């Protein structure tokens, strides 16, 4: 990394990737958390 632009490019890139992963994993987390209730409701 040589310039501020390089720094921002790298950090913002990782940040946005983490944020997108969070959004995707949150859906999976919620479905996992709610699993027992959904299986009870479907019976």
């Amino acid at each position, binding site marked *: 990394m040589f310039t501020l632009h390089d720094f921002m490019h790298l*950090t913002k890139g990782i*940040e946005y990737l983490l944020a997108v992963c969070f959004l995707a994993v949150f859906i999976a987390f919620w479905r996992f*958390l709610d699993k027992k209730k959904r299986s009870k409701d479907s019976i």
Partner: protein
Amino acid sequence: MTEQMAQKPTFRSWLQEKLFLGKTTSEYLKGLVTPFNIIAGLILAVGIPVTVIRFTQGLASVTNLSDTNPWGLWIGVDVLCGVALAAGGFAIGTAVYLFGLKDYHSVVRPAVLTGFLGYFFVVVGLCFDLGRPWRLPYPMFVSYGVTSVMFLVGWHVALYLSCQFVEFCPAISEWLGWRNLRKWLVRLTVGATVFGAILSTLHQSALGALFLLAPGKLHPLWYSPFIPVFFFISAIVAGLSMVIFEGMLSHRIFSNQIDHHHHATFDRLTVGLGKAAAVGLFSYFCLKWIGVAHGNHWDLLNTPLGHWFLVEVFIFVLLPCFLYVWGVQRESAGIVRFTAILTVIGIILNRVNVSMVAFNWDVVDRYSPRWTEFVVTITIITVGLLTFRWIVNRMPVLYTHPDYKEEY
């Protein structure tokens, strides 16, 4: 006529019933001799002289605070932890009155009382730190500081205390038998809840925003432009966990006040609160890593404070998250209660880390609290517990007043 006069309660009998729980003065005083009260008495016996010394001799006589370290245990624990752990009031109030989760109605009053007393004793702790307690109304009426985050915190705490008091007033009016006043106060509940939620969102995050002013002083792993968001989300988690913890203790200590229905539904409510806390913890965990990525501080993770950061995040955020999920999956209130204790410890650890451990982390003149600072903190917590117990023993907090059962 004689019969009517005999039935009309005198002021003395009313006082005896309301304040002394229907006992005579000697019976009441005998009943005060319990192990908890003896320990509380010993704590106050040390705490009150230390308080007198603080206010007569100054901060240097009882603290290790200095110009380099102006904030210590009283700000870190009494203010930051106190405000975070008192967030249950707005969290449960919002859930019940705004989101319509009526099932949780039985925990609203204990949560609001915990919130009110929590904020009240935060102000008491702040008075110890600031000194000159008669100047407490100054930010409200005399000297504004609209560019200061602390000005916002001061206003918000004052307004939020008022909100919580309004939300708790129906319980006080039921205790005193003031039906008409209670009718008006109940109508204010939703408005007070909305106002309280707005205030809480701002001041919970504002306590984190205080540290935005000191980027060079707070360790980079804890400092982030997102620290207000971290504080807000962790406060919600802390509040929910405190409601679980306080409910667990209340159901054991005050079990005679709670009717069978509330006892039977309590475990289900506990698991529900644990579910919400799990979501909060998961979001908080992910946001912490986004904060690390924002500053590109990955290299600092392999330092002593970096290891401590990992302990805080993995043992006291991610682990409780998974324990809550496990408890919810198994519908086990016991697992959820244990996890609530772990979460409360984790939030206290986070606030202590931000305000003391990771603050001024690279200066030579590091701060460590003096024993008298611990005495003051423990005294404030003890007085808070005694006040909570006094109120719960007299007012309809853990049970529905028999005159108003049809409303719930």
